[in-house]
């Protein structure tokens, strides 16, 4: 019943992503590398999709094309029926590296998108404070430069820096990969909490199977040589999810299923590197 309600809600929301026949090919003299080969992907508004695969499968490349950082060799991406040609604030991006601007305070970093858009000062401050509160960074708002924040705090700030602009889609490129396990679990739960409130579409790249199952509505596993989507696995675990759920029988069964699915590709990518 809850799921149906959610589905109904989503139809009126923004953030539909359509990837059509997308290929990215790097050509050198007499050698070509098909990083992505005819990717077909359709994402519902408000859906949380995880792109999972071994390194070299092109999952980050796909995310960079959706962000508009890279031009595809063939095919196109539609976000809410509009073709993507360049980066924009409608697609928020969270990088794997700590990417806050070192010369701006936490507040100024988060405010930047709104400032660029010309939102008046009072409204900016209110919105930024609301988001800072939501992720527990309020007391670090103006006194701290990024280097004074821990890795987890910096990534929280990066997430709200993207979300404060109300993007249609939030693109996340292994955002928790550099954090320690404990912090990573807390960040995952926090992300799900925010996503549940905002219902923003999320495309989340990871190579961590547990992370993908814990977060996603759906996992797209990707294969190598050429990079392509190999299978789509729906994750029907109930929400809200908690870290304890990762020990449930259903979770473990899914873990095994996804593992088997990407195992072959991982072997392939390992053989390539020897």
């Amino acid at each position: 019943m809850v799921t149906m309600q959610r589905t109904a809600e989503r139809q009126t929301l923004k953030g539909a992503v359509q990837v059509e026949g997308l290929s990215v090919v790097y050509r050198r003299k007499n050698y070509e590398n098909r990083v992505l080969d005819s990717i077909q992907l359709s994402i519902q508004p408000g859906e949380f999709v995880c792109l999972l695969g071994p390194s070299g499968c092109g999952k980050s490349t796909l995310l960079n094309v959706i962000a508009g950082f890279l031009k595809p060799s063939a095919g196109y991406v539609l976000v809410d029926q509009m073709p993507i040609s360049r980066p924009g604030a409608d697609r928020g991006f969270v990088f794997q590296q700590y990417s806050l601007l070192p010369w701006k305070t936490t507040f100024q970093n988060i405010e930047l998108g709104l400032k660029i858009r010309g939102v008046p000062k009072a409204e900016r401050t209110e919105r930024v404070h609301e988001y800072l509160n939501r992720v527990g960074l309020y007391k670090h708002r103006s006194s701290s430069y990024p280097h004074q924040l821990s890795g987890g705090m910096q990534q929280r700030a990066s997430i709200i820096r993207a979300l404060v602009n109300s993007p249609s889609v939030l693109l996340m490129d292994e955002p928790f990969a550099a954090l320690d396990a404990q912090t990573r679990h807390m960040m995952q739960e926090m992300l799900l909490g925010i996503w549940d409130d905002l219902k923003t579409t999320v495309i989340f790249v990871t190579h961590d199977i547990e992370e993908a199952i814990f977060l996603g509505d759906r996992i797209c596993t990707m294969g190598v040589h050429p990079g392509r989507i190999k299978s789509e696995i729906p994750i029907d675990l109930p929400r809200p999810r908690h870290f304890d759920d990762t020990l449930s029988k259903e979770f473990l069964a899914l873990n095994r299923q996804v593992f088997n699915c990407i195992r072959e590709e991982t072997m392939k990518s390992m053989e390539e590197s020897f």
Partner: protein
Amino acid sequence: MAVTVSKPVPTRWFGRIGDVLKTLFWGNRPFRRVLALMIFFGVWQFLCAINFDFFINFQLIPSPWEVLFATIDFVTSDPWIHFRSSIQRVFFGYLAASVLGIILGVLIGWFEAVEDLFLPPLELLRPIPAVAWIPLAILMFPNAESGMVYITFIGAFFPMLISTIRGVESTLSDTVLIRVGQCLGANSWHIFKDIVIPGSMPSIASGLTIGMGNAWFCLVTAEILAGRYGVGYITWESYVTSNYPPIVMGMLLIGLMGALSSWAVGRATNALMPWRVINKQGGG
């Protein structure tokens, strides 16, 4: 349940004195710096005292004492006109070099067309030493004063220009920083103002510091050109008249003013970059 308690080791009196000495002297950075100067002058005095002559000859080199007496003579006989002339020349040369070097450097770093149009002739002029400019400075400028300012300008301009260009280019090469701006909806003006300029600040600051040193570096050259006043002029004039202690005094005064002004520039630029923390090995 056995609990081992480490007994307090009785501190010996000399150990304590060692600690006191350590905190008062070795742990004290101003002390270490003064010590460095004392060693420098001490070694110099020693080499003069023993008439050191082994490949390098110190027999005719004025000792620190002789230089000190020359300095006392100099400062008691109305030195301000000399200081003022020199400081003025360096200041105007440096100011022009900073403004032009930074503006041109930013434009060359940011716009490909500006790079193509301006950089080749500048690269051609860059290796030319300031002293080689003296004849042209005399021919080009309406008076000696502006010619001298031009010579100090030449010294300061190129380090400033190159550091600024490199700073802008290295910020532009940081893909993540630029992408951060792009996916927040920044146009190229925003990226320029909010990312490229602050990102190249450390590099511009080092250009400003090096440029300050180089402006002083060129002072003697500038004051060879003409004039009656100036610390560099005194140095050159004493050489011509074979009066050695004032030469070394002039050198040291230029060194001192250069060091002080570079230090001031360093402090000022650090104040502009409060986000930077510098932790050195062995630092507190």
